[in-house]
């Protein structure tokens, strides 16, 4: 973990969810790594903390799998940056992973919200 000044209300990302978040972020157009990190943090209302090392590793992994593609470009404030965009395969994966995730959260919700079925604790 990179810093000790980690606010207590931040949650480390679950294993495997980072890939899905990245894909989702890229659905609305090409972004660079820093943009992706900011976007995830912002959209989760600062709940998720993105470990940047893991983020870049995940980006590389997705690129290796050809779910996203990357090329060097120039940012809006004229800085050189590496821009990532979804590939066709990435889109398929996004749909698939999203429905997978939704089924998972639903199942988790059912269990966590439901009444205990056995004897009282």
């Amino acid at each position, binding site marked *: 973990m990179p*810093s000790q000044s980690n606010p207590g209300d931040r949650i480390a990302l679950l294993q495997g969810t980072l890939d899905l978040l990245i894909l989702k972020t890229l659905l609305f157009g090409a972004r*660079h790594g*820093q943009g992706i*990190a900011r976007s995830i943090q912002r959209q989760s209302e600062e709940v998720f903390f993105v470990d940047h090392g893991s983020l870049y590793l995940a980006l*590389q992994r997705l690129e290796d799998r050809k779910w996203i593609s990357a090329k060097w470009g120039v940012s809006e404030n004229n800085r050189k940056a590496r821009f990532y965009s979804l590939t066709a395969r990435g889109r398929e994966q996004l749909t698939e992973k999203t429905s997978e995730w939704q089924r998972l959260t639903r199942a988790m919700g059912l269990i966590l919200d439901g009444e205990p079925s056995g004897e009282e604790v």
Partner: protein
Amino acid sequence: MFRRKRSSDDFAEEIRAHLALEADELQSEGLSEDEAQRRAKVEFGSVQTARERFYLRGRVAWLDDLLRDLQFAVRQLTKRPGFTFVAILVLALGIGASVAMFAFVNAALLEPLPYKDPGRIMSVNESDTGLPGWPLSYPDFLDWQARNKSFSSLDVYTGSGYLLRTGSGMEAVKGERVSGGFFQTLGVHPMLGRDFNPGEDQPGGPNVVLLSYQAWVRRFGARPDVTGSTVDLDNQVYTIIGVLPRSFSFALSGGAEFWAPINRLSPHEHFRTFYTFFGIGRLREGVTVQAARTEMRTISAQLQRQYAVTGRDLNASVLPYSEVVVGNIRPILLMLLGGACLLLLIACVNVGSLVLVRSESRRHEIAVRGALGATPARLIRQFVTEGLLLAGLGSATGIAFAAVLMRLLSHMVPKGMASHMPFLDGVGLNAHTVVFALATAFLSSLLLAVTPVSRLSVQKVRDGLMDGGRSAVSGFWRRLGANLVIVELAIAVMLLTGAGLFGQSLYRLLHVPLGFDANHLAVVEVSVPGSVFKTKEQSAGLYREIVQRVTSLPGVESAGLTSKLPVECNCPTDGIQIVGRPYHGEHNEVNERHVGESYLPALHATLMRGRFFTAEDDASHPGVAVINQTLARKYFPGADPIGQRIANDEAGKPSVWQIVGVIDDVREGPLDVAIAPTEYFPISQTGDPFFTLAARSAQDANTLLPELVSALHQVNLDLGVSNEVTLNEKIGTTQAALLHRFSAWLVGGFAATALILGVVGLYGVVAYSVGRRTREIGVRMALGAQRGSVYRLVIRQAGWLTLAGLAIGLICSLGTSMLMRSLLFGVRAWDPATLFGVAALLGLGSMAASFLPARRAASIDPNEALRSE
């Protein structure tokens, strides 16, 4: 999949971009520039960790480490090309020599003979006192075959020469007569045609012959339809019934080309006391060699009693066939392999100490790497990789070198001798040899890897970092380095002693008194077709004509005929009795030679008493004999042998020979065997169909050889003429001379290499220690030490190492010399001259090796030495 991997630099660039973008954004949120940059970094976390994780992504860490270790090792080796070259060369010498020697040992002693179940094949013969492998007579063979229960089959073979009629005349060829089951006993099947049929080896059987593979290829163009065709051997028509397989060889018959069944015995082959057949048997399952020997001894004794055979002390001998074939060269081969292994050891030690010196000079590097976080395991792995790389390169070069050496050595064996060593064809890089090569490679890598590691483990990282570590001579290194040098010197002493002893043996062997003048003698073997000259008178006429024609050739001083040349063999022998003396069945075994009257004078043999033979001594006159001094001394001590008569059983006929002359000993047997009593009979009185012509030339005997051949063909085109050579060359290539020469040269080569390695190793240790003690010597000189005392200081160190190496080496070499005592000729195992010579040579070498560093030490400028730190 195959696209180019993204570089770490590109990744670093991206992270830099990230930090810049983040800082921009933070700045736009109102932070100061410095604060924005700081926050961006803090938010990102460890850039280094991210880069490391990127780097390690998808890699197998140990393989990656290995590759980097290898890269590093290669860089280390190429950075010091001199060290690398020397180390690889030294290793290659050691590994090459030992692998090549092992290839010979393997081919001769380990590879099975090309027969079925070769371990059960036994050489089954008589043995006379001191003469193992005495042949059988044919009647004995038949009885042995019928009576024994130890062998599932028992057969005999006997060498035979044929005159083969070819398009261009007669050619003498080697053949072998064998009993019918010979090939079945060996478990060999013809590759073409058939084996002998039952009955073909009975008296009056057909003239059939099997071809050796080589004869089939060379003389019949490898024609597949050769079976059924005929050849003319000794003016008789033989039908070819088959061809033996390529793998077939029979060492004891040399390169025999024609294999015929024994179905026609010569008159004397019917006699029970005419010993000319060699037995070979296949031991039954479950019968031991010892049991078979006991049984055959009983049978042999029974037969001797039954037929009242006297005159010889015969005792059946049963020996494993492989023992008979390689028994005499086994000790030499093993000794050479031992020498080569010593060389390998010294080479490994030498390279090991080189590596050690290198690791010493890399103390600082190791310490720095350790301080930067390299674990000991990681450091050790680096050194092991370097050791392995070096050993691998050395081994690869060594194996290539071994391949060259094997070819070279095999080719150095003369053809005649090689035909009795069929295993030479098996010398090469086969499975066994490769395993041995890999084993040596493994051991040397182990040594090279372990040496610096052992050095590493005793060293504390902190010591290495301290500057002081540079000037104090490391006690550990000094001890280990010095001990290694002592080992090297001791091995060098052992090899030098061996080389000295073999060199002396060879010298003495080649200078053994011959009793005749071997220079300027040209010799050629002649065989006379039996159908051409039937009577002794006809033969005597032929002998006369040959000698006359050859003597009249320009440049020929004299010429003569003999049944067997000198320096060949103490054979054939004859059992004699002295006429007029009581005889109680003693074994009076003497060499028997049939010679023309001009032969002994042509040899320049020295007549001691009486006369040589004359032209009068022919079949129409009573038998006469010339004897050598040894015979005279043994059988006529203190008496004049001239006029005495000896009796024998000449070709199955009781004969009497009057002694007319005594000559000084002519060496008839091999160089390394004591002179045996010898009798000479006139060839005109015996009438031999095979003989050798010896002609003494006024100039180089080589120029005479073609003229001798054509002169013989002018006498009669049907004469078989073969093996024309000078006598000196023939003597130089006898087994005794060759084995001694091989041993002397090979061990000499090993020893020279070992001496160089040992002395260079000593130089390394002394020079290294002087280099390390520069400051100490500087202090000593500043305090008033004289140059002479500095010299003494350095030379004393070298002297102690040399003395220790010499002492250990001399003690060990006494042991090794005793082991190889039986291989020496004319020199004692602990020959003081050799030992002294070795000590002197090594002493001189060591003085030379220590003089250079001593001079460097003495010329140290104290100011410089003290300032340098």
